[in-house]
C-alpha cells in the first residue's frame, strides 16, 4: 500500500468522510477515492455502487481486477431532547452499533445521572452543532416537543443531508411545525423528508416502545440509503 494512500484514507476516516481504497490486484498499486470524486467507466459504476451499499469486494473492469475497500463513517444518532424516549433509545441504539449524541439545553433533563456513559451536552443545539456538525451519516431525532429547541436542529439536519430526520409530535403538531419551517424559508421538498409522527407505525405506546419504533425506522433509512435517492433521481 502506498503510504500516501494510507495517510489520506485515515484522514478521511477521522473526518467522517466516506472513502474507498482502490487496489489494482494485478500490480498492487492503489489510490483513495473520496465520495464525490469522479471515476470514469465501469470502475466508476462499481465505485458508486460500493459507496451506496457500503460493501467491499472485488470488481473486474477494463480487463483488470480491482479490490474496493469501502470505509463509511459509523452511523451516528443525534437526539435532540434528553427525554424518556431518549433514555430508552440510547442503550438500544448503542447495541445496534450507533454513535450517540444527546443535546438538550435544559439541564434538569440533560443530567449525566439520567444518561450514564453517553455523550450528552446541556446546551442549545445550534451551538453544539456548530462545533460538531451533522453529516449524511447522521440520523437526527427531534424529541423535545419544544419548537425553540427542535426547529433549528431539524433545519440543520435537512441542510446537512442527514440520512434520517424524524420529529416527535402528532399530525396536528407537525402541521404547525411545517408552517413554521415554511415561514423560515425551507422548501416543501426538504420538509417532506421529516418523518413525523416519528417512528414506524407499530402502535407503540410507552417511551420504550416508541424508542423501538424510532430505531427501526432509522435502520430502515440507513439500509435503504442511496436506493431512495436513486428512485428520486429517476423520477
Amino acid at each position: 500500500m502506498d503510504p500516501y494512500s494510507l495517510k489520506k484514507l485515515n484522514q478521511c476516516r477521522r473526518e467522517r468522510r466516506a472513502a474507498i481504497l482502490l487496489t489494482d490486484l494485478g500490480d498492487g498499486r492503489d489510490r483513495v477515492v473520496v465520495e464525490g470524486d469522479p471515476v470514469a467507466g465501469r470502475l466508476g459504476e462499481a465505485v458508486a455502487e460500493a459507496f451506496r451499499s457500503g460493501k467491499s469486494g472485488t470488481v473486474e473492469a477494463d480487463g483488470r481486477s480491482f479490490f474496493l475497500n469501502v470505509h463509511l463513517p459509523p452511523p451516528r444518532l443525534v437526539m435532540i431532547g434528553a427525554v424518556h424516549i431518549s433514555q430508552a433509545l440510547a442503550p438500544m441504539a448503542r447495541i445496534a452499533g450507533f454513535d450517540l449524541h444527546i443535546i438538550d439545553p435544559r439541564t434538569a433533563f440533560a443530567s449525566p445521572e439520567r444518561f450514564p456513559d453517553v455523550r450528552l451536552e446541556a446546551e442549545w443545539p445550534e451551538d453544539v452543532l456548530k462545533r460538531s456538525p451533522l453529516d449524511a451519516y447522521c440520523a437526527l431525532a427531534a424529541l423535545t416537543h419544544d419548537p425553540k429547541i427542535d426547529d433549528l436542529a431539524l433545519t440543520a439536519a435537512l441542510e446537512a443531508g442527514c440520512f434520517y430526520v424524524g420529529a416527535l409530535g402528532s399530525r396536528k403538531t407537525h402541521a404547525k411545525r411545517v408552517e413554521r419551517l415554511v415561514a423560515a424559508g425551507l422548501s416543501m421538498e426538504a420538509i417532506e423528508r421529516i418523518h413525523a409522527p416519528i417512528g414506524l407505525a407499530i402502535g407503540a405506546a410507552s417511551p420504550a416502545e416508541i424508542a423501538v419504533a424510532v430505531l427501526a425506522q432509522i435502520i430502515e433509512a440507513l439500509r435503504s440509503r442511496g436506493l431512495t435517492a436513486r428512485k428520486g433521481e429517476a423520477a
Partner: protein
Amino acid sequence: MSEVAQVPEPRDPLMIAEEWMKDGRNVAIATVVETWGSAPRPVGSHLVIDADGLFEGSVSGGCVEGAVVAEASEVIADGNPRMLEFGVADETAWRVGLSCGGRIKVYVERLG
C-alpha cells in the same frame, strides 16, 4: 444501563499501521478480499504486521493469523504482494484449521 456500557473499540489496524510507519517500522497489511461460506471476518477486514511479527487486527477468528504473519515477513523482505487462500479444501489451511468450514482469500502487501 451501565451493564451495556460501550465495549471499548478494538484498536484500529489502519491507524496503528500509520503510527508504526511514522515510527519507521516496516509494515505489512493483510486484507480479507473474498469470503465463501461462513467466514468469521467480513471482506475488508485488516491485520497489520511489523517486521518483528508484532500484529494487530484480524482476518479470521484466529485460525489463520499465524500463517499470515509468517507470510508477511517475506512480503516485507521482498516487497511483492501475494494472495493467500485458506479453506477446508486446502490441506495447509485444514492444518491451520478454518473450523468454521468457510474459505477466505487474503491479500498481503507491504506498506511503502
